[in-house]
């Protein structure tokens, strides 16, 4: 821990500034009128998720587990992709299908350089959880998801989401991912493709992150 002069000075200034605050525990001094982790009431969680993802102008399709490998290949072809990076832990059937379709496959082992990653057309990943109300995918970069740069540098991101991974809204999703945060894992939330509204507030999809996000929702 730091013992610098600045640290002591700042903490002492704070204590002086807060002389009016009674010396009771924070939670007792200032109650927070909120119940954490509550799900939102939704008619159909997956329908809501689809509606929100599509609203960000990202791709969305539903498929069965058995159909997934073929749908991955079809989606990659539809986006004109010839090279892919498939992180460790991704479903072997998906890896075999992509390789079998004649697309170049890297498993990021040994890790690709930034330049190699920049020259790679697409990445296929899974995710940790998702929030329907906001159309958000949450990654904890565990097996099947790869290190953070993999789902950032290639221009196309195909993300496989299992139906049971979709929570109703942000509070429920935060409750699901809090363990990974406490395990000090890096976390990335993705809501649509990269976008900017910096010029005249007109929304442009596709800046530095993947310009195409395509979600494959696996049911059953």
């Amino acid at each position: 821990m730091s013992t610098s002069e600045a640290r002591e000075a700042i903490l002492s200034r704070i204590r002086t500034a807060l002389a009016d605050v009674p010396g009771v525990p924070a939670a007792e001094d200032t109650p927070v009128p909120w119940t954490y982790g509550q799900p939102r009431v939704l008619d159909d969680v997956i329908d809501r998720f689809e509606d929100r993802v599509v609203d960000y102008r990202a791709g969305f399709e539903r498929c069965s587990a058995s159909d997934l490998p073929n749908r991955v290949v079809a989606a990659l072809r539809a986006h004109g992709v010839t090279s892919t990076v498939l992180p460790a832990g991704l479903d072997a059937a998906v890896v075999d299908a992509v390789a079998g379709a004649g697309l170049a496959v890297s498993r990021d082992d040994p890790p690709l350089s930034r330049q190699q990653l920049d020259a790679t057309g697409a990445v296929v990943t899974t995710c940790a959880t998702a929030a329907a109300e906001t159309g958000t995918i949450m990654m904890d970069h565990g097996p099947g998801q790869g290190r953070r740069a993999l789902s950032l540098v290639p221009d196309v991101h195909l993300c496989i989401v299992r139906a049971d991974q979709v929570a109703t809204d942000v509070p429920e999703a935060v409750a699901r991912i809090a363990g990974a945060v406490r395990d000090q894992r890096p976390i990335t939330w993705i809501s649509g493709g990269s976008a900017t509204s910096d010029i005249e507030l007109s929304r442009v999809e596709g800046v530095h992150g993947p310009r195409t996000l395509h979600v494959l929702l696996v049911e059953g």
Partner: protein
Amino acid sequence: MSKATQVPVRRAGHTDLESTRRTPAPPAGDLIDSPRFPVQAKVELGNPVQRKNLHHAMTTIRAKRTKVAAELDNWEDLRLAGEAIKNRTLRHLDQYLVQLEESLTAAGTTVHWARDAQEANAIIVGLVNEALGDAEGDAREVVKVKSMATQEIDMNEALEEAGIAAWETDLAELIVQLGHDRPSHILVPAIHRNRSEVREIFLEEMGRYGRPAPEGLDTEPANLAGAARLHLREKFLRAKVAISGANFAVAETGTLVVVESEGNGRMCLTLAETLISVVGIEKVLPTVEDLEVFLQLLPRSSTGERMNPYTSLWTGPTAGDGPQTMHVVLIDNGRTKVLSDPKGREALRCIRCSACINVCPVYEKVGGHAYGSVYPGPIGSVLTPQLRGVTSPVDASLPYASTLCGACFDVCPVRIPLPDLLVHMRHKVVEGKKAKAEADGLKGLLHPHAEPAIMKATAQVLSSPKLWAAATAAGSLGGKALKGRVAKFGPLPWPLSKWTNARDVPIPPTESFRAWYARTHHEDGSLK
């Protein structure tokens, strides 16, 4: 462990460094030396292109915010929760900061503390030099995630003076940097520019600092964003050091959070080898779960989206993924001064969403540059004079840069009572002037402000029917004399100029209501 590396930071005029600069020079001078708000507002109002750009942008973003805030039936509950969590943290800030430091350190991040901008910049310059080692020439550079804290401390110029180029990677910040300009908004800093201006800046400047803009670049926003993608990608791919701010810092876990849209933040946070995060001490939140409140409030209040495209959370370095060396610089820079005022400290709840700016009728007309502060609009008018004090002319004028209409409080996601705080700060300005007059031995000779004297005289007239009749008769005479010649008064002589400098005064009617009533009605009230 975190002892500041002492590097002298010279604050030189920009022009004398022009020939050897690494990055485009911003306008000369320090923000705190800006003219008083009403003076600069008049200049800004004379720019019709800016007014048109702002009107269009603010109208658009207000409508988006209203729509997505209304979607959540528990929006008011979220605001109350946001207010309470921030209050809890601020009222026990010393405990949460010590906890944050412990968690950050346990996660492998080195923590530094800085009392002011100069101390912060000295630490940062030292850390960057250490990380760059003996790199030379173009390699002496850092890539930056958009950050208000680094703007507040003028970090880019401190790095520039140390021979290090700091590249803004947010599209709007890039437009501002390449345009030798200053940000005019905390969320969309180049909102005073339109697409044609952006195209000109890119064509003119990009080639001087890296990959030039594509030939034949048009004004389509998608193509302008595409030019920025290409220009910045080479900088991302070679980045050794990145500098970020943080929207939130979780005390319990030592997790930092950056909320963004473009992916430039992720590039910096992921591709660099060393990451330095500059974090205001008020950014701390108690627990991970508190994020469920703020990550609903912030995007909906800010860009008017249900969720921003990218949010990154990280808790120290991760083997094989992203920067392996991490530093956090916790900055005070006036915040403890704000904290010492039990009323004023409410402004420290601010999460920099910009909703109050977007809804402010004054901001929409004059834009951000008139405020002479990195924080414009209502929040800037209450926060900046607290952070910097009310002694400079611009800081003493900021609490008056508002009509007190109250729209800002209604949209604030953490319920900062901005109109109350504006009045509170006006009081502080008056008290400051009184104290100065007393110190100068002028007590009793001068009232520091004309308004109370005028109000006193007005009260006398309004409480006497005779005086009132005389005053309105005098007004109608003036109205008759001016009728048909002019529609309104321009500036009036002192002390009335205090009012008319920023307001038009209509020509008085040619007849008072009382005179009209007496002319058209009998004494019993019936019409003549």
